Each structure stands twice: as C-alpha cells, then as structure tokens.
C-alpha cells in the first residue's frame, strides 16, 4: 500500500514532496520500474487473471462503477456549458440555472459514489489477490527441494520476492483500476466533445499525438537516467554498509580519512546522476502544462472564431475548456501504464516460475506414518547424485544399531553431509535404499519420520522470538518446566538465567546478541526437548571460548546418550568416543571401525589423524 522513501536503489520508492505516495502516473514512477519483459507475457497475464476469477461478481460491479464515474465526468462540463448558453446571460433565467445546477449536483453525487465504491472494491480485490499469491509462494517455499536453496541464496530470493510482490501489488491494487478508469473517461470525454462540436473536437485532438510521442521519448530518457541513479545510490549504500560494519578495522589501520574521501566521491557521483535524471523529469511536467495551454488556446482561438460565426455556442466553449483540462491525466496514465503492465507481468512470471518449480520429494500416495522406532538405521547400496554426471555418493552400505554413535569423517567434499541429508530424507536416493527399523524411508510420511529425528546443524538457526520459543521449537506442547529442564540438560540454563528477561529474552535477527557458543547450546536444548530416537549432529568447526567449549561437549554427551546418533565430527574426542567411525572419500565408504582399529589400519583415517597431530605438536 504505502511506498517508503529511501535510497534503497531497489524499487520505485521515492516519495515525492512529503506526500508519502508516489504518483503512479508520473514519469519518475514508470522510469524507476526495472526495464524487463515477461518471456511469455500472455501466459503470465492468464495466470494472474486466474487469481481474479473468485472475484467475478465484484469485478462486474467495479466495471459498472468505473463506467458511471466516467459518464459523470463527461456530463458535468456539458451541463455547465448548457447553463452558460441558456441561462447565464444578462436577464437570464435564474430558475433554469438553479435546476441545471441541481442536476449537476446529482451528477457529482453519483460520480462520488461510483468513485468511492470503485476504489474500495478494487483495493479489496487487489489485497485479497496479493494475499493469495503470498500464501501460494509460502506454501511452495515449504515444499521446495533443498537443492533449490543451495542454488538460490536466501537473501537474493527474499529481496526478489519482496520486490516482485510489491510491483504486482501496485499494479493490481492501484494502476489497473486507474488505467481502466482512464480509458473510460477518455472515451467519455472524446464522445462528449464529438457530440457537442465535431469540428472543434477534432481540432482539439491534434495535441494528443504530440503528447503521446513526447511521453514516450521522455520515458526512454528518464529510464536510462534512473538506471544510473539506482546504480550510484546502490554504490553509496554498499559502501556505507561496509564501512560501518568494518569501522573498527578502519580505525585500527588509520584508514578513516581515505574512507571518508571514497564515500564523498560516491556520494557526489550519486548527486550528479540524480541531477541528470531530474533535468529530464522536471522538464516533462512544464512541457505537459504548455501543451495543455496550447490545447486550451486552440479551443479558445479556433472556438472563439467559430463562436463569432455562430457555429458553436459560448457554452460549448466553456465545456471544451474543462474537457481539454481533463484529457491529460488519463493520457499520461495510459502512456506509463504499458511499462507498468510489463514490469508486473515480468514480476508475476518470476513468481509463477517459483510456484511451478517441480518438487521431487513427496510423500508416496500410500505412505504410512512411521511407527515409534528403536532407531536402527541401514544404508543399502546407496548412491546419490544431483547431476548424473557427478555422483556424490557411490554404493554406500552400513548399519547402525539402536543407541550407537556413528562418527562420519572424511575430507571436505567426501559426501559427509549427503549421508545425513539422505537419512533425514531431505533428498531421495538415486539408487539403493535407506531404512529405519527396516522401513524404506520412501514408504513413510516425511512428517512421521522427522518427528522421530533430531538435527543439530553447525550453526544453530534461531528464530525471532524468545529463548523459550526457540527451545520449544523442538516440541511445541512442552511446558515451561520441560523447556527449562531441557535447557539445564544442555548447560544453557546458567547463561539464560543471567539474561535480563531469562527465558523470555527476545532474540534478535538470526540470534544476534547471543554468542555462537550460546546459540549452539540453545540448538542442543531444542534437540534434547524433541527427544528424538535418531540424532543427527553436524559438529561446529568454529572454536568458542574454552569454558563454553566444555559446556557444549558435556551437553552433547547428554544428548547422544541412548540415541542412535550420526555425527559429522571435527573433534577428536567425539570421534574417539564413537562406536563406529565411517571414513568417506570421494563418495565412497572406504574404511570403518573404531579409532584404534582405524589407526592400526594405517589408511586415510590414520593420515587425517596424523595431520591433526602434526599441527598440535608444533
């Protein structure tokens, strides 16, 4: 609804003059829309229209209102013209004038009512449409294959979605009805003019092509200029962001002055670019005004000449002056509408593309809920590849007994993460079978599988909300006492109790305000609360301060106890405690056994181990 000012450089978001909203008929607005076309504009338009089907009857009503409103705009000046001719003259007819004005009041009242209903209805339709697009996007996001998120970083995806929905919102919520209104009032005005004086009407229309051509040319100029404005303000923001984030380093290295000069330079470039854009847009409106006066002058000059000859009345002249003034805004809107329509179709197309992304991982039609499991896990000849040419896992087989801790080790890119992703069924195997308690994962529902599985990722993702909310994410119906018990078991209670609001402390965006170690402890508490039979742990590589490290280790020991656990391990202590160590290399399972067995084997594990040892000895 509201467009915020601010040089974000993203969308057409410059508020004008403090009014808050930008006039969507203005050159600036159209020029700031990204210059792009939908690959299949017709298809995108049909999809967008499909969203409107539930609102058929409302749309019908809107159409009636738009027509009524346009008609009232055409009739108004004609009534004033009529009054001028018949009644407004020395010794004219006061009663007749009063009656005509009564009629005019009625026309205005109808016009008000129509405009009001049309705005209210269309706004509502726009909002509901946008809301259902948002829901569709969200539901899709929840079902997209994880591979999609590897290819599309969350930040990019987010800003694209925000931008695209906003473009659609403006178009559907505001522009569409205005454009529709413009077409009808334009037609109404043109018809009214032609009826009253075809000759004068045609002569007056001569400015229309000039207006259209001029708008087109200015749009093209403005578009280039605004692209540069966007780029330069983007540079300013990027520089600002980086310098503020790195201010301590800049001060440590005596670079603040150089930083200030660089900022001033980019700032100046932005000012220069903005001024060239302004030169174009600020010339446009005066030109339109001059053109408007030219049209009025034509009406007055040629119309006056016709009036003297008695071929038109003074009343018609008065009406024409009003008509000509009302002609320009619809024309302007129509000429920028095309750009807007294209931008919003391109935006819709991208959104539909997301909605149409195939989901490769669905519950089988006859999928059964997985019953409560003991926690035995087996991989039988499992292979996996995102891309058939590049296998990631190749014929991996192993079995884990209930309660065992399995450490997975290997160099970067060996396929460690893939093994645990397949176990959680984030991906489906390309060949072979993954079984839990003998059930092929593909025959059970995903929800029932994952509800018996706990995952502690390297960097514990925290949601906006309180600390308690984040722990309770492991089991939504947990009581406060259970949340606290889980936090205590995870060695997190101590630091939580020390925060100002304890468990009710708000966590900032992505856990800001908490140290990395504290975030890990909350992630562990979350998994403890979920009390899963099978646990997957991607051990963090980053070192935290030594005390926290001890706390994390002991919390993890609590967590692993009695569960079938798979650990991508980086710490030797974890690895040595494991019941089985799986050594992966280039997608193959090449060694398995306990620490001592594998050291004795003197293979890859022994080599990895020695490398760690080499650093430690120095």
């Amino acid at each position, binding site marked *: *609804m509201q467009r915020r000012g601010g*040089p974000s450089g993203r969308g057409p978001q410059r508020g004008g*003059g*403090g009014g*808050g909203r930008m006039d969507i008929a203005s050159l600036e607005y159209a020029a700031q829309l990204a210059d792009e076309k939908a690959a299949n504009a017709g298809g995108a338009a049909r999809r967008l229209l499909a969203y409107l089907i539930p609102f058929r009857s409302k749309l019908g009503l809107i159409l009636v209102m738009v027509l009524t409103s346009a008609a009232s705009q055409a009739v108004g000046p004609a009534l004033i013209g009529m*009054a*001028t001719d018949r009644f*407004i003259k020395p010794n004219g007819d006061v009663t007749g*004038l009063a009656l005509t*004005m009564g009629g005019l*009041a009625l026309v*205005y009242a109808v*016009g*008000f009512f129509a405009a*009001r209903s049309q*705005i209210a209805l269309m*706004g509502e339709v726009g*909002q509901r449409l*946008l809301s259902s697009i948002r829901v569709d996007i969200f539901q899709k*996001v*929840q079902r997209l294959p*994880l591979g999609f998120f590897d290819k599309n970083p*969350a930040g990019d995806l987010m800003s694209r*979605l925000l931008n695209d929905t906003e473009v659609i919102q403006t178009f559907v919520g505001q522009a569409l009805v205005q454009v529709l209104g413009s077409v009808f009032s334009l037609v109404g005005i043109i018809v009214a003019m032609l009826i009253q004086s075809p000759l004068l009407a045609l002569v007056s229309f001569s400015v229309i092509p000039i207006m259209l051509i001029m708008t087109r040319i200015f749009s093209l100029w403005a578009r280039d200029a605004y692209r540069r404005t966007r780029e330069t303000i983007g540079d300013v923001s*990027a520089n600002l*962001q*980086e310098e*503020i984030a790195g*201010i301590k380093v*800049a*001060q*440590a*290295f*005596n670079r603040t002055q150089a*930083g*200030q000069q660089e900022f001033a330079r980019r*700032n100046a470039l932005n*000012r220069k670019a903005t*001024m060239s854009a*302004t030169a174009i847009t*600020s*010339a446009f*409106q*005066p030109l339109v005004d001059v053109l408007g006066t030219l049209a009025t002058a034509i009406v*007055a*000059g040629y119309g*006056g000449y016709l009036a*003297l000859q008695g071929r038109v009345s003074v009343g018609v002249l*008065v009406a024409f002056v009003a008509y000509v003034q009302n002609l320009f805004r619809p024309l302007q809107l129509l000429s920028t509408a095309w750009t807007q329509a294209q931008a919003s179709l391109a935006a819709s197309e991208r959104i539909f593309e997301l909605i149409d992304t195939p989901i490769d991982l669905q519950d089988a039609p006859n999928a059964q809920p997985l019953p409560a499991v003991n926690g035995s896990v087996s991989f039988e000849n499992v292979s996996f590849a995102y891309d058939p040419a590049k296998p990631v896992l190749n014929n991996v087989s192993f079995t884990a007994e209930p309660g065992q801790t399995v450490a997975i080790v290997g160099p970067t890119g060996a396929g460690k993460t893939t093994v645990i992703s397949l176990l959680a069924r984030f991906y489906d195997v390309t060949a072979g079978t993954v079984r839990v308690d003998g059930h092929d994962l593909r025959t059970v529902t995903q929800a029932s599988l994952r509800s018996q*599985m706990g995952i502690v*990722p390297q960097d514990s*993702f925290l949601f906006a909300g309180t600390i308690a909310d984040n722990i309770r*994410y492991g089991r939504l119906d947990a009581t406060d006492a259970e949340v606290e018990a889980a936090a205590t078991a995870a060695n997190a209670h101590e630091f939580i109790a020390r925060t100002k609001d304890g468990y009710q402390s708000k966590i900032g965006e992505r856990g800001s305000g908490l140290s990395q170690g504290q975030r890990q402890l909350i992630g562990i508490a979350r998994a403890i609360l979920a009390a899963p039979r099978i646990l997957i742990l991607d051990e963090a590589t980053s*070192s935290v*301060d*030594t005390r*926290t490290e001890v706390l994390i*280790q002991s919390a993890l020991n609590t967590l692993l106890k009695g569960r079938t656990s798979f650990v991508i391990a980086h710490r030797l202590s974890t690895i040595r405690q494991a019941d089985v160590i799986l050594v992966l290399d280039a997608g193959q399972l090449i060694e398995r056994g306990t620490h001592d067995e594998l050291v004795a084997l003197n293979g890859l594990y022994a080599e990895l181990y020695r490398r760690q040892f080499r650093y*430690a000895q*120095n």
Partner: protein
Amino acid sequence: MKHLRRSLIFLRPNTLLMTGAIISLVAVLVSNLLSPQYLQRAIDDGISAGNQSAIMNAVIMLLLLALLRGVFSFAQTYLLERISQNVAFDMRNLLFNKLSDLSFSYHDQQQTGQLMTRVTSDVEVIRQFVGQGLLNLVAAVITVIGVIIVLVATNWQLAIVELLSIPIIFALIGFFISKVRPLFGVVQSRLGALNTILQENLAGIRVVRAFAREPYEQKRYLTMNEALMDVNITINKRSSVAFPLTFLTVNVATLLVVLVGGIKVINGTITVGTLVAFLSYLVVLIGPVFGIGFLATAIGRAAVSAERVFEVLDARNEVEEKPGARSLGQIRGDVEFRNVVFKFAGAEQQALDDVSLHVPSGHTVAIMGRTGSGKSSIINMIPRFYDPQSGQVLVDGIDVRDVTLDSLRGNIGMVLQDTVLFSGTIRDNIAYGRPEATPDEVVAAARAAQADEFIGGFPDGYDTLVGERGVGLSGGQKQRVAIARALLLNPRILILDDSTSAVDAETEYQIQQALDKLMRGRTSFVIAQRISTVRNADMIVLLDEGKIIATGTHDDLLRENALYGEIVDSQLRKDEPVAAAEEAN
C-alpha cells in the same frame, strides 16, 4: 522541532540556488495569476463583443504566459532538486565522517542497520522536507494568498463562495492523516513480521524441515498474512472515502461558483468572462491547497528524522585528539599500564579495575581469563580505542592521549576478532594499512602469512575481487589475509585477538606458523587460545573480573594458581591430540 530548525543550516550554502528558485517561483505565480485574466478578456472583449482580434490577442498572451510558466516551473523544480540533493549530500558526508571518527564505545552500542537507516532513510526524509517541501510550502502559501487577493478584489462575494472549499479540503486531509496514517505504521510492522517469517523459512528451511514444523510455520504465516490484509483493506476503505470526497468538494465548489456567479451574470453584476476566470482560478488554487495540507503533516515526520540525524551528529566522541597532540614517531615498543580503570558506557561493572602492567619492548604477553574478564578491554586500550576513566596507558613512556591517533595506530598492527575484509582486490586488502606498499612487499607479507599459496590458486591472483561482489573466502583464508595486512605495517606493537576460530585443523596449523613469524621481535599482546602460544610467551597475564590476579610464566602459574589450572585444563582438553600422539609415538 528544535532539530528541524537546526537542519535549516544545511540550506545556508545554497543561498544562490534558493534565490534562483524564489525568482522562478514568483514568475510562475505571476503567470498563474494573469492567465485567467486573459481568458476573461477573450470571452468578454472577444467572443461576447464579437471581436476576432481581441480573441487572438488574448490567446497569444495565454500561450506566452504558458511558456513563461513552463520555463520557470522547470527552473523551480530543477533548482529545488539541486538544493535538496546538496542538502542530502552534505548531510550524508557529515554523518559518515562523524561515524567513522566516533570511538568504539559509540559503535559498541549501535547496530549497523540502525546507523544505515539514519544515513539513508532519515536523510531522505529531511532532504525532501528541507530541500523541497519547505520551499514548495512557501510557494504554495504565496500562490494561495495571491489568488485570494485577486479574487476578493474582483468580486468578494463570489470569492467567499469559491474560497469556502479551502477549509473543507484541509479538514478532509486532516481526517485522512489522523485516520489513515497511523495505520501505515501498523502495515509496516505487520509486513515486517510477515517478511521475517518468510525470511526465516528461507534461511532456516533445514531446521523447519528437520523438526517437521511446516504446519506450525504455515499457521504463523497465514495468521500474519490475514492480519496484514485486514489492515490494508481498512486503509483502503478509509482512503476510498477521503479521496473522492476531496474531488467532490472541488466539484461542489465549481457548482456553487457557477450557480452564484451565474445569478450575478443574470443580474448584470459580473460578466461571463469573470465567471470563467473564477472557475479557472479554482484550478490554480487546488494544487497548492493540497500541497499545503500534505506538507504541513510531513513536518512531524521530518522532525523525527532530524532528531535522529542530529543524535548522531551530536554524539560525544569519547576518544578525541588533544589540541596540539604530537606525533609519536618511531617507537621501541615499550608498553605500560598504570592503575588503569575502565568501564564500558552503561555498564555497571568495571571492565578493568586498577590494572598496572609493564611490558618491555619485544616481549610477548599472553592474556588469559574467562569470557568477560577484561581480555579484550586491555588490548583495546593500547591503540586508544577507548580511554580509561582513570590511570594511564603509556607507550615508550608517553601517555597515548598526548599523541596523534594516526601516529599511535600507525605503530600498532592488529588482527581483530572478526576479520573484516573490504570490497576490492586481495591486494587492496593486504595493503589496506599502507596503500603505498609495492607489489613485492604485498606478496612478501602474504607469503609470511601463509596466504600466498591460496591466493596464487585464484585465476586473478592478487587481483581477485573479494567482498560483496567478489569471491567468498573461507574463514581461514580471510584470517590469513588479515594477518598479512597486519604484517605489512611492520608494526612495533602487535595485537592478536582470538585470531583463530572457524578453521579446520590444517589451516589452524598454518595460521599458527604465520603468527609465530609475525610475533618475532615485536611487543606482542595475544589473547591466547592455544597452549603452545602460552608456553612460548614471555609473560602470562591472568585476568578475572577486570583485575590482574596473577602474572608469570606458564610453569609458575600452573603451580600457584587454581583458576589458571582450570582454564589451562579446558584448553589442554582441546589440544588432546598432543597428548594422544605423544603416547602413540
């Protein structure tokens, strides 16, 4: 409001432009006021009197006036934008300079996003208001007054009928502002909440799926989406009354002017031309009236932004150079703390409590202690990132507050806890502290920091772009670039804070080697993570709750201090492979 008035100083350098804008504004006003007069002449002297040449004269005058208005309204718009851009330009530079000079204690309490908003959004609001809105407001007021004078002078009764619309429009705008604008805030916060949920479901998708929380997330999202839609529809309903109602007001004003004016024409009090001129003035009047209404309400928003901007500009810089501070010159690297007491702004406890310490040139000091014991505070006092509340920090016997910041920090190399690299090439980043360094020196520094090898692995080598638009370096690679950056300064004093985290064992080993090389022969302060560093240190300083509780060598402290034993114990556990490997051999 005080702050808004203060922000007017940004207009001061623009006097010439403002004079130009005011001249243009007057020219536009004259044209606006004269045009309806010629329209009246065209009708009364031309059409009604049957005089063709009077019509033509009036029409030509109308066109000339339109051209005049066109040229000057272009000038007015352009000049106002220029002024407002100058205001924004100066304001942004001033803010940026202030921010980059403010000491750590200020930045500790601020978030990047918050500061960004001030330099971008707040400046934008003030730009629009001070740079454009204010002068437009003046122009609108003058235009309205001018039209009122002309109308009253022509026919005061009809003028009153026409001017009645002004208070009504103001009232409608007031209604709109009070009923609708507060809802915009609600929309922003609900939209923000909705987007946070979406963002979390994009960034945290693995967690959502791992815990099978899709239905829960969906419910959260749908609820917020519904709430957002509701408030948007409410806004729309209220606007749908407000806007057509203002148009209705204008239309009713037209109608009344035609009715009352028409009766006057019938009575012979005024001519048809005067009536048409009155209608024409109505058009001239409406734009500025709307402008005044909306601009008047923008004042509040601009005042808030001005306050936020001046909050930054007025922030006290805790660390400022003394007037007449001298340059430190080449130092030996002797560092002394004398009874230093330091407290973070807003903190209750002292971060450093009467710390005294002398480190002779060339010695390596390992600083140990629990989280929050004051380790970082100690090292931050040396480059004067903070000033102590009492006591002194001396370098080569000179109080750090008596020398210029540049000369002090130029002698100190730092590898900070979070390694920040800037957009640019790897070479730029290594030469960050000494941009004039030769390519050979850069390579030498990189080699010493064990970074040369991986840099050579990039297709563009040292010219590889890093940062926002460049390649992403791993944590360990970033750290080695940061070490090279510190090495290139060839500083006498070296400060290392927690400098190896987020790397695998192999990298850690390489970094360790680079650091050992870096410390050789310099006065070094290390917040130690590794037992090997501690063993090699000339002195270990053990901190607890801001106090130095023990100093000495590793063996001394191990014997004498229980806390040290506890810390080393947990440290040793991390280095377990040492013990394990020793047994194995």
